[in-house]
């Protein structure tokens, strides 16, 4: 298995996609963390209540952990999708399955390799968030607040959540083999279907279901509690997200084992 994981890592790093996505992670996290830190505790006016200030733990978790997660997970999702669809798009799936005819092993190796790179993305995002968010925090005259209660747990969980999203992507990529279609579906689900579903469920007083959606589960791991969102406890969020990852990747294994490669 270690040979296979090495092989999958070679595949990832031998094309340019992975660092293109990594640049995306850095830029998006930079913006996220900077904006979150810049507007934390600022009075929005019009009689609305201000968000917690930068001396509050939830605000700092938002700047360092949630901003890092939000900045990275969509790129991790795309990396996971292309990890599978790219093989079909460029027909490298043929030599891959010739070298390893037991296809379930290929999918497991892919999952491990992508999880590793996804965690790497998460780590880079955290470093970016600490640098960008921390700079803004200091500029606004607050303490860095790295000793804040619950911060490092949220950071660690955020990194793992980014890794889990690569598995969700990998699973979607196994289900939908067309690369463009798979990316569109994955992005549409996360940016469109899920938020709408979440709002809809909230409006119908079905928050109990809404908090089991992948994004809500991720938020439960990293985000500060919010009056608008009813979230699971952090550990339950982690389990739910892991469940999605395993579900999608497992479907991928089942589907790929017997399907003809033409």
């Amino acid at each position, binding site marked *: 298995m270690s040979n296979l994981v090495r*092989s999958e890592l070679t595949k990832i790093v*031998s094309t340019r996609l992975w660092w293109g996505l990594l640049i995306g992670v850095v830029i998006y996290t930079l913006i996220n963390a900077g904006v979150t830190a810049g507007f934390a505790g600022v009075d929005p006016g019009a009689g609305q209540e201000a968000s917690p200030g930068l001396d509050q733990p939830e605000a700092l978790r938002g700047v360092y952990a949630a901003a890092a997660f939000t900045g990275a997970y969509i790129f991790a999702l795309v990396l996971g999708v292309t990890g599978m669809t790219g093989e079909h798009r*460029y027909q*490298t799936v*043929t*030599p891959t399955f*010739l*070298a*390893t005819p037991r296809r379930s092993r290929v999918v497991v190796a892919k999952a491990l390799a992508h999880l590793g790179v996804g965690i790497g993305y998460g780590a880079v995002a955290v470093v970016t968030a600490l640098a960008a968010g921390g700079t803004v925090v200091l500029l606004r005259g607050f303490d860095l607040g790295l000793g804040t209660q619950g911060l490092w747990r949220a950071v660690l969980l955020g990194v793992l959540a980014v890794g889990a999203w690569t598995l969700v992507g990998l699973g979607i990529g196994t289900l939908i083999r067309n690369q463009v279609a798979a990316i569109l579906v994955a992005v549409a689900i996360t940016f469109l279907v899920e938020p709408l579903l979440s709002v809809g469920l909230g409006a119908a007083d079905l928050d109990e279901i809404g908090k089991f959606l992948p994004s809500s589960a991720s938020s439960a791991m990293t985000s500060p509690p919010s009056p608008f969102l009813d979230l699971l406890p952090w550990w339950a969020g982690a389990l739910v997200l892991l469940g999605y990852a395993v579900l999608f990747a497992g479907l991928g294994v089942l589907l790929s084992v017997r399907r003809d490669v*033409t």
Partner: protein
Amino acid sequence: MRGMTTGLPLEIRGLSKTFGAVRAVDDLTFSVAPGVVTGFLGPNGAGKTTTLRCLLGLVQPSAGHAWVGGRPYRELENPLQSVGAALEAASFHPGRSARDHLRFLAQAGGLPASRVTDVLRIVGIEEYADRRVGGFSLGMRQRLGLAQALLGDPGVLVLDEPANGLDPAGIAWLRGFLRALAAEGRTVLVSSHVLSEVQQTVDEVVVIAHGRLVTQGRLRDLEAAKASVLVRTPERSRLAAALAEAGAGTTVAEDGDSGLSVHGSSTDDIGRLAFAAGVELHELSNQPGDLERLFLDLTSEVAR
């Protein structure tokens, strides 16, 4: 040259594969022996690639089996070291270098990294190894495919249309290369839809059309069966009558103004007959079988 390598025989028995309503392969049976180059011939869409994909465990047969050394490909312990395959010239990520493509395969197959450099040198693309495959010509991709097939130094080579896109020098090189591999005792199966491309390379041929077997045998025997004798004489009808009288499976056809094309009779026999009948001859010569014609005849017979 390396030492003798034991190739495994390939056995295709009662193989059928249906894609939706299309019967791509239809009750196909043939075998491929080690030590010779076998040509797997048929027009486009005859089912060659589907057969090879069944053999390599990529496509699940609807019926029958295609085995390597008595086992399905998926049950081979070290597949890359048993069977090397190159299926189409497009199985590469355009943004990945040739070396990296071979590297991930070597890693997956547990092969030493040195093999990557070895095979790049063997197929002669070492100097392009670190360039992205997207910029490769079709001929270079074919060579990379061959390098991929050779990676595990396998006893069996399965190559789909390897001569496609090669220039004449490349085809000559491939010919010598495949013959040398077979001479080492390996099993070499080469598919093509153009007979002339592999005519001078293969010893055995398997011809299929519409998913069904048309013929299998030594190329030399097929050529001999299709060979004819050309006779030119001013007394064509008299000679034709004499030949018809002698009978014994001889068929005669008119050829041009004064010629006869005779199948199933040797120049010796025809000369003797003409002498006995007092027929004047202007030419009496052996005509090799037109293989391209033969190929078209064989594959269109099934179509009818």
